[in-house]
């Protein structure tokens, strides 16, 4: 995972719970990295350790933490750092979701050490779309759900997200039906 993800977790914690909490989380997680560089790849374990420690330290369930993080990723990190790029992604949620597969494929090419998930869309309707999430990592589906929720908020669109298929239930990958 590139440092930008871990950095987003750090920002999210500091913003909501303060620096001391972040130090405690870091101590709890056992992660001994003082500074995350956005374009530097870090072991995925680091991210999981951090997320787990946040959950333990704040007594918030991990899935909720991941959802919150997904939203934060879109609304704060994405918007603040890649705002224009995100907005160029589409005029509305539907356009953006349609661009999502290309977007991630480009990233994969740009950051060769990154193993980004793959997104696909299907069943494109006027007011709903199927988003396919195909990742080598496990346990980040809630993060994806948070991302989709965040995008709804970014485009001021109330969305309903339904997990149609779940890798934990034996499916090949997760399929989210995003309706608005």
């Amino acid at each position: 995972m590139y440092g930008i993800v871990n950095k987003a977790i750090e920002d999210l914690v500091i913003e909501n719970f303060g620096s001391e909490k972040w130090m405690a989380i870091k101590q709890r997680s056992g992660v001994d990295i003082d500074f995350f560089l956005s374009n530097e790849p870090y072991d995925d374990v680091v991210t999981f350790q951090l997320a787990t420690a946040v959950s333990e330290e704040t007594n918030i369930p991990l899935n909720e933490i991941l959802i919150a993080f997904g939203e934060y990723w879109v609304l704060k990190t994405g918007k603040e750092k890649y705002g224009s790029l995100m907005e160029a992604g589409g005029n509305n949620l539907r356009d953006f979701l349609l661009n999502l597969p290309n977007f991630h494929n480009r990233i994969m090419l740009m950051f060769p050490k990154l193993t980004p998930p793959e997104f696909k869309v299907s069943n494109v309707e006027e007011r709903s779309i199927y988003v396919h999430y195909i990742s080598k990592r496990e346990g980040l589906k809630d993060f994806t759900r948070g991302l989709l929720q965040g995008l709804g908020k970014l485009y001021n669109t109330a969305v309903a997200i339904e997990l149609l298929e779940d890798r934990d239930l034996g499916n090949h990958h997760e399929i989210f039906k995003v309706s608005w």
Partner: protein
Amino acid sequence: MEPFQFNSKQFNSLFPFYFLLNDKMQIIKTGNSLAKLVVIAKNELFAEVFTIERPIVEEDARFTTLLNLCNQLISIKCLQKESISLRGQFQHLQPSNNILFIGSPWFASVEEIQKNNLKLNDFAVQDPVIDLLHLLKTQEIVTDEVKMLLTTINKQKSDLKRLSFIAEETVNGVVITDASGRIEWVNRGFEKITGYTLKEIQQKTPGSFLQGNNSSAETINYLKQQISNKQPFVCEIINYKKNGQQYWVRINGQPLFDNKNNISGFFAIEEDITQEKENELKIQHYEERFRIALEKIGDNVWIHDFESNTTEFSKNDTDFLGFNLSETKIHPQVWWNCVHPEDKWMLEENNAAYLAGKIDHHSLEYRIIHETGQVKWVLDRGIVFEKKNNLPHRIIGTHTDITKLKEAEETINTQKQFYETILNNIPSDIAVFDSTHTYLFVNPKGIKDETLRKWIIGKKDEDYIKFRNKPLYLLEGRKKLFAEVLKTKKIKSWEEEIIKPDGSREYILRNMYPYLNEKGKVELVIGYGVDITERIKIEQQLKIAQQETQAAALAKERFLANMSHEIRTPMNGILGITGFLAKTDLNPKQKEYIHLIRESTSNLLVILNDVLDLEKIIAGKLELEKTSFNITEKIKLSTESFRYKSEEKELFLEYDNLLPENLFVVGDPHRLSQILLNLISNAVKFTEKGSIIIGTKISKETDTEVEIEFSVADSGIGIAKDKLQKIFDPYVQAKSDISRKYGGTGLGLSICKHLVEIQKGKIEVTSKETQGSIFKFTIPYQKSKHFTVQTIHQYNYACMKDKKILVAEDVEVNQYVMKSTLEAWGCSTTIVDNGKKAVEAVRNNDFDLILMDIQMPEMNGFEATEIIRNLPDKRKAALPIIAVTANSLKGITERYISSGMDDYILKPLEESKLFLVMEKHLIVKNNPQKTTDNTPIYDSSQLTKMGGGNETFIKKLAEIFVRTAPLTFDLMMQALTTKNWQEVSREAHKLKSSIDSMGITPGKEIIRKIEDRCKAEKDLDTIEALSNEFKTILQTSIEQLKKDFLN
């Protein structure tokens, strides 16, 4: 390769920013995205829309120019939007002979895509521009992050540097060892403390060179154990410096771990605490002393530990609690059991307050129960001296047995209550003020309302007066009096009159009593007020009653005066005319009638005088004379006046005198005569046969005083025993028939008793009926200081010859008596019948003296006297005026004198008394230099002796002395002026024999000194003074002799 074709859509999908130029340089076709970016009209010339940026072309862009640029990287700029450049290449197409531009917009940042209203879909999927911009953005972000990282690193570097510096320079020793405890590094502080350099000790264990004999083996073991267990350690130990000196050090160490959590070494801070240890010792020492001091203050010192809940007592052998404690530290329950159950709450609350951190000290008074069961009061004081987590950990304090103090307090409280009860129930207003007139106390009588009574404390009197809306004059008065009390430091009393709203008046007697402190300063003022309204009302009633009584007494006095006047006036006529009648030729029968008339009139006068005298005595208006007189002579005269009467009754009358001869005393001879005459008169009256013996003797005597006992004893009818007690009461006679048989008013003895008593004497009687009575009385007299001779007054009526007398008298018979008497003396008399005429007479004539009646028509005697005294002719204004009055009451004399009269005489007139009064004033007026002392300085007895009782001869002797002595004195003085001392001596010798002959005692000594000193011619400087002294004596004697013999 086989040619292939794209339709427009496909071409647009691949190259959405393309445009196609014909050979006229007209833009004949554009891609969809370019059209979105730049507005290009159909067939618009290339040069109007674009300009070639790179490569630089010198001439205008023509078709051929563009052909030459094919297959080169071209950058063209939009003329419409200079910020937009397109990056791509030209391609010549045949056979259409058109030139195709394929490229994309070249932006500097992702933001420009949005700025130019483009979306990702506007770019061909294969176009990497977006990815390049994405990378650029990421690069920016990372650059920012690197900058931030550098700042953080720099800061950490700086912090580290500072920390290193602190570690290096701190006064404490810092030691870093390897995992086996061998020194790798020490700071300068360590070097300073121990005296070793880093070089000397590297690779050594600290204990190997720092520890010595006094280092605690226990602590050393502890250190070794902690290090081998890779555990932190804290301890205090004695170490040794390089120079062998020992010091105390506190070591605080901890293991250091590497990233893999393996121990890499130890880090320790060593603090030199030698000073701290010394201070600790000092504190222990002070604590000990402090504890001893506390023990002396209280009866016990205790320390309570909240954590262990134990209390330690300084003394375990004390009998404070009544039992010996085997250990000083006792379980709290032992202590709690001693505390009186009713007072436990106090300690519980106190403990809770300490534990809650609400208090840091306390002072309580409560009861404990001694082992003997006796209840003791204890003063418990304590203070926190150790805290943990900001809460009290240990407190120290003392216990003091205050049982006796409490008992005393109790007594005081009982007394206080006792006095307060008194003060609160006393029926007076009581208030206590401080020196600023501020209320400290008021009792319920002062202020009934309890709230108001509490309110007033600390307020001033003016606050109260204003609050109660009382008149302000009260305040002013009180303030003034308060200031006076402060100033004089004496009690001040005044009566306050308060007019109530209903108009009634209330009177309060107020007092302010200053209470002085030891320095004599007024500390408190006690004010108390008593309602005296009732008393004042009674006083007012009494005043009215008194005025009424006085009016009644005045009326009585006036009545008596009038009665006296009315009786005396006709009696004056009767006596006067009877006197004249007696001098005519009468036959024996007529003479006897005349005698009876005079006798009866005299008796009537006696009765009248008795009544008046008694009234005077009872009213306290009797005045005593104070004159020098020969007491034996006086008694003899009184006795002799009864000689005739007693002989008539054939009674034996004798005067048994045991007094020394010529005993002169100072007192009232007339009142003595009055008593004696009364008693002797009674004796003669009530004795039919036998004797009357008058006795005198000295009963007491001092140098200055003599008390004389007088007695009158008779052998008469005596007095019954049961009457003896009453005979001195007024209007009482021993027998009811006495008045009838013997006459009299029954006032005589009563008057005698009063007269004796007002002269500070006593009177008593012993009697036996039918056998006789003895009246005894004593009177104390002052002995006379001067040697005086009682002269027998000579009534020399001739001296009145030719005196011009004005008589103002309205009653004709009195006019006649007066005129006849005065003319018989040779006076020339003018009679007027009222005051007005008297004044006129004085204005128009010259008189020597005026006899002025008081009660006259038109103008009374007082008015006339006043006018005469204010006459412009001073001689006339100073004329002697004698009041002639029938009013004999006391007080009237003062009135006569104060109204300008010189003297008075009572009616009925007695010739001798009239003469004496007139003589006195005529001589006084004619001899203004007369000495005020009437006592003769010559010896009349000597004269009488020399003259053999021959009046003419005595007079002649006086005349010769009066004539010659001044001449001789003049000759002596002349000789003195020429200092012819022998001549002075001779003349003095002549004077000496004359002075001796006349018995002028005061001059005898002086003239002898003059004679002797001049003869011897020594002490001559005294002669002049002696002569002057003698001159005064000579002049006085001449005056007296002239007065007594020559007028």
